[in-house]
């Protein structure tokens, strides 16, 4: 087993465990903290996949900015005693868990059995694929149009934030 695969298994295990803790903890603040752990594990996984830039962005944007928003929203709602929100076991919950488990099993089975090796020409190989230079060149030549569309998306998000949250606008 190489160092990379050892790292992969450790990071994946921690990621799955922290994700489970996110949904099972009663207190939303503790859930949010486990979510940060999960984000860091994902960043580590991106590193093992040669995606350095994405890994750093994962930490800056998700573990940084988005978590700030999460915590603000938790404080904004100020649920107080979160236990009041928790529901008992209902038949809906049982069905939902069953269906989710079925979907998970299916996906694992499929990815295990029908993994195909892509022809080398379709995907660029090498370790430079995740570097900032490579992403910059791709983003501003081939993927220029989606990049510009992103600015419109961000603009709409700004307008939406004002419409929904500003007292008078």
């Amino acid at each position: 087993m190489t160092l990379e695969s050892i790292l992969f298994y450790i990071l994946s295990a921690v990621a799955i465990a922290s994700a489970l803790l996110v949904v099972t903890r009663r207190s939303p603040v503790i859930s949010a903290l486990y979510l940060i752990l999960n984000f860091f594990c994902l960043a580590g996984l991106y590193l093992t996949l040669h995606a350095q830039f994405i890994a750093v962005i994962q930490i800056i944007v998700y573990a940084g900015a988005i978590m700030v928003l999460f915590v603000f929203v938790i404080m904004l709602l100020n649920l107080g005693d979160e236990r009041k929100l928790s529901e008992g076991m209902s038949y809906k919950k049982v069905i939902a868990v069953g269906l989710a488990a079925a979907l998970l099993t299916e996906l694992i089975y499929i990815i295990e059995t029908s993994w195909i090796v892509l022809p080398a020409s379709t995907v660029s190989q090498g370790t430079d694929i995740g570097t900032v230079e490579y992403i910059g060149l791709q983003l501003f030549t081939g993927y220029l149009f989606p990049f510009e569309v992103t600015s419109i998306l961000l603009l709409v998000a700004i307008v939406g934030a004002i419409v929904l949250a500003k007292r008078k606008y």
Partner: protein
Amino acid sequence: MLRNYLPIIMMMAVAALFGVVMGKINEFIGPKRPSEEKQSTYESGMEPIRTARERFSVKFYMVAMLFIVFDIEVVFLYPWAVSYKHLGVAGFATMFVFIAILLIGYFYVWKKGALEWD
């Protein structure tokens, strides 16, 4: 490939070690003259011990939301700056359009008074 990260890991280890060592040295050789005022917890002049579950104003949400939007903009600037030499005038024009569109958003936010805290 992971060998490439060795300098970074060493750097992080040295930084962590440096922090711990400096703190410990201070603890051992620094002079200690405790008084009641000094021993109390300092929290920027606020009452240090009370419930942390106070309801935040929705204004914080506005600020956080706008921060994320402009944070993502900066994320896009970074790869652009790195590969700027290869992109030339066309690259400059594309980033100009991107920034101009978000500048309209900034102007909007500004005029709507979302940057003011009232």
